[in-house]
């Protein structure tokens, strides 16, 4: 499967550009900065416990260029960058460095210290800052300037100010990081890496939790860093970002490079094909549902729960999918939480199946509401338990008899839904949930509510961190459920999701509903416009 980067995945000139947000304008900006950093990884092989997860990867990471590393969950992206960052030692292959002075050096493995010394810094998806410390302290974290054994606060602030200035950001140096927004905290983390002389910056899905505005700001830094000659490795799921930011692209599939080359040479659909091995990534509207929606299942009338949202009017009828679209923090998740009894409405009226909303989740489940939280690991998965238990948990009262329940019952429940949702688990219901990929885990959590027979599904960011293939499966399943009379409310910050899923879309900005789009009005342009760009 090993191919040389330039040789594989050559685009077909005849192909027309894919639909969607992917425009090729951004990629043309590739400035040939000074190539201070050069890393040529050759034939990288890595196994975990007898399973080979990287089968010989060739990747070039060059200073002054942005490399987009694409691939579905489990394709080996994280493993590869961990090898580069010195967290994993590869079983075979070499990492060849060329220093600024042209000195060649080839190593078979890096330790974290060696990676640091060469200027390689990783920004992980999860924030790794110290929330109680200030912005300046966080930027200096790990290398605080000292004078006579004490922290030199003046030098610390000066260095933080310099770095933020060079990034073109204005943040209060004395604000505790915990009080900042997610996007700002990420900037602080990048500033920390830069103040520590990063020459190669690895960003692991940095935009997963960012608003469109914050994404644009992030892209501005990335371009600025590129101009300064920093090598940037950008891991992402989102293809529109590749067109916007990347100079080069490497696609991994099942631990091997399936496409590589300059980003401008690839169309979106080719990248999708390289990622999943089939062409399903085109963002397009589903065929209009031929069934008329039924009675209103969920009604918000001038409902408010300050400071999260105010004066929200919203109706979801049986048999329709309504998407609540807004940036992270716009209140969409809080509206969803209200339906599931995680938040109380303080004003106006909310009716679920014509009744008062539940006061706690257990009551909501009894009313027939199913719920997926945005953070699957923290709020959804029973990670040490089997798939069967995870799937059956809300249905235990029904599946048990005098409090007793056997694994056979859960096995049956799993078999009922595994084919419907195409859950890939070789070990069946007995397999631990933790051993599944993100997409399959999410399918199991969705199957919970199918098994429970929920008539109203409230889903927050249902496909975050889910690979393209599993995403399509989840959409298909949701459409099928709606067609059979279930009402679905999806709170999302992903406009492509809205386009692919919604019968109606309600757009929120800062806790208020700003627009409602009917089926024929839902386009990526209309959505981004309504959400304030």
């Amino acid at each position: 499967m090993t191919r040389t980067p330039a040789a594989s995945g050559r685009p077909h000139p005849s192909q027309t550009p894919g639909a969607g947000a992917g425009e090729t304008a951004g990629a043309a900006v590739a400035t040939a900065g000074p190539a201070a950093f050069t890393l040529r990884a050759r034939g990288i092989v890595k196994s975990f416990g007898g399973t080979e997860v990287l089968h010989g990867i060739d990747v070039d990471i060059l200073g002054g260029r942005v490399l987009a590393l694409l691939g579905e969950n489990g394709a080996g992206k994280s493993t590869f960058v961990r090898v580069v960052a010195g967290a994993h030692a590869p079983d075979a292959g070499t990492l060849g460095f060329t220093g600024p002075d042209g000195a060649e050096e080839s190593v078979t493995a890096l330790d974290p210290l060696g990676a640091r010394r060469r200027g390689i810094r990783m920004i992980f998806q999860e924030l790794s800052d110290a929330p109680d410390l200030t912005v300046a302290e966080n930027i200096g974290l790990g290398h605080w300037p000292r004078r006579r054994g004490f922290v030199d606060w003046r030098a610390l602030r000066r260095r933080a100010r310099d770095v933020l200035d060079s990034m073109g950001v204005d943040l209060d140096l004395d604000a505790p990081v915990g009080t900042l927004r997610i996007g700002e905290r990420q900037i602080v983390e990048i500033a920390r890496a830069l103040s520590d002389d990063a020459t190669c910056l690895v960003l692991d899905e940095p935009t997963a939790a960012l608003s469109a505005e914050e994404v644009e700001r992030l892209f501005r830094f990335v371009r600025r860093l590129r101009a300064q000659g920093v090598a940037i490795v950008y891991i992402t799921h989102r293809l529109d970002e590749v067109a916007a930011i990347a100079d080069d692209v490497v696609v991994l599939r099942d631990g091997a490079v399936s496409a590589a080359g300059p980003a401008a040479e690839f169309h979106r659909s080719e990248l999708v094909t390289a990622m999943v091995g089939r062409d399903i990534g085109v963002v397009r509207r589903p065929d209009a549902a031929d069934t008329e929606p039924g009675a209103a299942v969920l009604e918000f009338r001038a409902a408010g729960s300050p400071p999260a949202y105010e004066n929200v009017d919203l109706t979801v009828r049986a048999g329709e999918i309504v998407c609540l679209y807004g940036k992270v923090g716009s209140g969409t998740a809080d509206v969803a939480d209200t339906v599931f009894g995680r938040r109380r409405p303080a004003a106006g009226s909310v009716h679920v199946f014509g009744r008062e909303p539940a006061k706690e989740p257990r009551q909501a489940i009894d009313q027939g509401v199913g719920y997926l939280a945005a953070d699957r690991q923290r709020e959804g998965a029973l990670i040490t338990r089997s798939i069967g238990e995870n799937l059956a948990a809300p249905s235990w009262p029904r599946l048990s008899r005098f409090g007793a329940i056997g694994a056979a019952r859960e096995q049956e429940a799993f078999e009922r839904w595994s084919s419907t949702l195409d859950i890939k688990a070789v070990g069946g219901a007995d397999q631990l949930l933790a051993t599944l990929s993100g997409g399959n885990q999410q399918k199991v959590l969705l199957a919970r509510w199918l098994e429970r027979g929920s008539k109203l599904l409230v889903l927050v960011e249902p496909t975050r961190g889910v690979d393209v293939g599993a995403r399509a499966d989840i959409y298909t399943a949701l459409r099928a459920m709606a067609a059979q009379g279930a009402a679905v409310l999806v709170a999302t910050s992903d406009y492509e999701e809205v386009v692919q899923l919604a019968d109606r879309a309600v757009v929120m900005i800062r806790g208020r509903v700003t627009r409602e789009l009917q089926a024929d009005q839902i386009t990526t342009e209309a959505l981004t416009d309504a959400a304030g760009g």
Partner: protein
Amino acid sequence: MKDTTSSEEGSMANVTGKKQTTDTTPTEGTVPDTTPTDTAPPDTAPADATPPEKVSVDKTPAGRTSTDPAAGGTPASKGGDAPPTARRRARSAPELAALLVVLVALIAFFWLKSPYFMTKDNIVNVLTAIAVTGIIAIPGTMLLIAGQVDLSVGSGAAFCGVMMATVSQNHALILGVLVAVGLGILIGLVNGLLVTVLRVNALIATLGMLAVLRGLTEVRAHGATVTLANFSGLGTARPFLNIPVPGLLLLGIAVLAALVMRYTVFGRSLYAAGSNPVAARLVGVRGGKMIVVAFVLSGVGVALSGLILDSQLSAASPNAATGLELSVVTAIVLGGASLAGGRGTIQGTIVGLLIIGVLNNGLTLLNVSSFYQQVASGALLIIAVSFDQLRLRFSKL
């Protein structure tokens, strides 16, 4: 330990601080697999167990079918060519097997060193010695699986023992027993409510309770041993195979508890609450209620142990069972239950108990001073917890 499941905010915190950040990568965990494979009797099917209508999904719009060859290569299939049962064994066996190897090695060592070790009398001695610890460690395992811990067990046992003895001096024996069991339940209830309703960290709440109960015990006993007549049956009778009653009780309780943890909603709810308190609440599991019940069970175990101690000594000492919580926690963690919650089995705890029992007994036979035995017990706890941490780290990678 974690705070209770009754609140999202409270339950986000846990002592190791690991859990929230560790589980982002799906991995092949080295987790003791407790998933039962046995099937439930078919005749227990309730009438209302009919599943909801199956949703039929048309996959053609997405341009794929389940037989798509590309679909077979997705991450879920990594390393998963072995049949399910083989996988299960591969994951769960090494841990329990390793423990059994340690146990067998210890037995072999002491057998070689002391001719008395493998005699019938001594084996019964070991069983009797672990019975008191075990009857507390079984509900303790349930608690740790739910992410909680009870440190008040040692002084609780002494308290129940002294209360029983003092009440029995002036009243019927049975009244003393009832008082002891009632107090055990009360202690468990107070612990449970402190942890779930007031959301006091379980380590701290039960550490406080440990001191409170030891003090009350001394007060009640006026600092002296209370003698007790006609109550030796519970501790010393050997009704079956020459095994004393406490050993039989431990065996019965362990089998019962193992079944409960495997085959009941209660057991599963404890696992769920320990595995992820927030997620458990969001699937409708009554984690808080289940934790209170587990604390009450722990209180019952404590009362029972107190009675057994009384009976074995024909007296109740206010200093009885000092430091018992140490052996209890060691046995549980050694047996594979994780301090982070969500993992552990009753079987593992039994093996952990046997290792401690054999070690203590063997060292005594070899005339090792009790001071050094104390050193060994502490070291064993530290080793057990270190293994727990290593296990968590490897399952994270």
